[in-house]
């Protein structure tokens, strides 16, 4: 039983690496003498399928259920990319369970400044990820289960997947009122969103993923997904805010474990496949060759921020300086995450026009990012006259500007 369970843990432990198997074979000429019978059967099975060498592709038989051992949002998103790009899912659908440490995930064509409180996220160390599927912004923590249904393009059917989840929930709690909406949300008691959906359709494969709120920090979710940034004009796809609820609040027996097992059982029954949940390590290059570079790409500034559709900011803020209020106007155009046009206007009795001009022209071409702006404005400050008052005004202005980034 332990050996069988150990076999399920693909990619973990050197016992199943091809090198240790070759070692065993070299010593004895066959694998049967050193390895216990049940382990040997499992091992031969894996070896025949050449799992370590050829990777994950060959292990999938009639359908498979996998669960990531990682809680890193980028690594888990990379698993989706990898399966989508590399696997032939003909008659081999896959269900993938994953959970992430606190992260905000935005859709492919969204604007993070419009969707979430980036300042709060930086303070609290919350990761920001952009996924490759469409849809809106969501907050993930360990109380949220992500489910990805991989199929061929032909078998892509979001409603079918959601009905499966509803059946699974009703199997463990028959009176639970959960319905799928036309927008592919799952609503509890007709009003609380417990799941949101997004999907990606490729050449021959497609995936539909959705969240499932079990025991997420709802207060934190609300504050993170509320953007404080004013004056944004953008064509990016906007989220539709919803009232959410955790399933655990409705029924304390509905833990993440219980929910995952219920969905797995229903999936296995529906696809007539094995209901074991196979653990996978998303950093294992022997199982998923090339996956780590996918995870790296998802973490780049160019992907997360640079893919933001073109947008503009037209806003103003008040500055209190020596008991008088000053109004600063800001017009910024941002393309590919970088400032294309920059017009910061301040009263010229407060800051000389030449200094403002220098600020505006030096920000053009730079990333719309507080770190890069800090660096640029510090360099610029050194070129300004050594005037204490001027420096203090400059710092006040720059802090305000970084506050909108």
């Amino acid at each position: 039983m332990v050996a069988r369970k150990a076999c399920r843990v693909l990619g973990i432990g050197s016992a199943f690496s091809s090198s240790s198997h070759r070692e065993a074979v070299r010593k004895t000429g066959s694998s049967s003498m050193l390895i216990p019978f049940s382990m040997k059967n499992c091992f031969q099975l894996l070896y025949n399928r050449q799992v370590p060498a050829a990777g994950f592709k060959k292990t999938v038989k009639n359908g498979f259920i996998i669960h990531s051992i990682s809680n890193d949002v980028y690594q888990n998103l990379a698993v989706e990319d990898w399966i989508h790009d590399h696997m032939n899912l003909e008659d081999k659908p896959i269900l993938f369970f994953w959970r992430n440490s606190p992260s905000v995930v935005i859709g492919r064509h969204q604007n993070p400044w419009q969707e979430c409180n980036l300042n709060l996220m930086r303070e609290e160390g919350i990761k920001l990820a952009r996924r490759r599927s469409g849809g809106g912004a969501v907050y993930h923590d360990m109380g949220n289960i992500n489910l990805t249904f991989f199929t061929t393009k032909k078998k892509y059917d979001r409603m079918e997947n959601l009905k499966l989840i509803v059946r699974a929930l009703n199997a463990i709690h028959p009176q639970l009122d959960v319905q799928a909406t036309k927008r592919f949300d799952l609503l509890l008691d007709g009003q609380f969103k417990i799941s949101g959906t997004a999907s990606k359709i490729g050449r021959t494969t497609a995936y539909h993923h959705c969240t499932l709120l079990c025991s997420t920090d709802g207060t934190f979710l609300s504050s993170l997904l509320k953007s404080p940034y004013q004056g944004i004009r953008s064509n990016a796809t906007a989220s539709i805010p919803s009232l959410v609820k955790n399933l655990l609040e409705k029924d304390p027996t509905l833990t993440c474990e219980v929910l995952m097992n219920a969905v797995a059982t229903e999936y296995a029954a529906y696809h007539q496949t094995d209901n074991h949940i196979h653990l996978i390590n998303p950093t294992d290059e022997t199982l998923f060759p090339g996956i780590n570079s996918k995870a790296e790409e998802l973490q780049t500034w160019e992907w997360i921020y640079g893919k933001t559709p073109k947008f503009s900011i037209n806003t103003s803020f008040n500055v209190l300086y020596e008991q008088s209020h000053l109004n600063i106007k800001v017009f910024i155009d941002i393309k590919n995450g970088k400032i294309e046009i920059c017009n910061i206007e301040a009263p010229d009795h407060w800051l000389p026009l030449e200094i403002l001009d220098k600020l505006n022209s030096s920000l053009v071409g730079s990333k719309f990012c507080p770190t890069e702006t800090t660096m640029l404005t510090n360099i610029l400050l050194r070129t300004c006259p050594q005037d204490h008052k001027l420096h203090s005004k400059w710092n006040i202005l720059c802090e305000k500007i970084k506050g909108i980034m």
Partner: protein
Amino acid sequence: MRAVLCSLCAVLAPAAPCLLRAWQLGAGVIRTLCMGLALLSVCKFTEKHECVTTENGVGTVGISNFAQEALGDVVYCSLLEVGTKLNKQDEFGALESVKAASELYSPLSGEVSEINEALAENPGLVSKFCYEDGWLIKMTLSNPSALDEIRS
């Protein structure tokens, strides 16, 4: 299929007399040629549902009616920049509709010469490809005769 192509032909060249000819080519391609249009202007449907018309070595890519119906309302269109070199079947952008991001695959090899900026403000235009407003990209073809390789 033939009926669809015939009606498409009628839309593209409504005023011109249209001699409809359909024949099987060696690779199993069915091609419709509208005599009213410029000689090299042929609209072909790839199995990926991107549609391309060509004229003088420039391809105009859009999505077929079939693909557009499957997508529904398009809420966002993202396209690669002008100057990007594409090989056949390279991804050149994505369309988003009801939370689904669908990748777009280039039916031909070439270089992106123009992108339809109107789609940024009005992504729903992609459904109007047949009426010439919903084109996605134009590309200078690296091999104009490669059009024959597209299977419908």
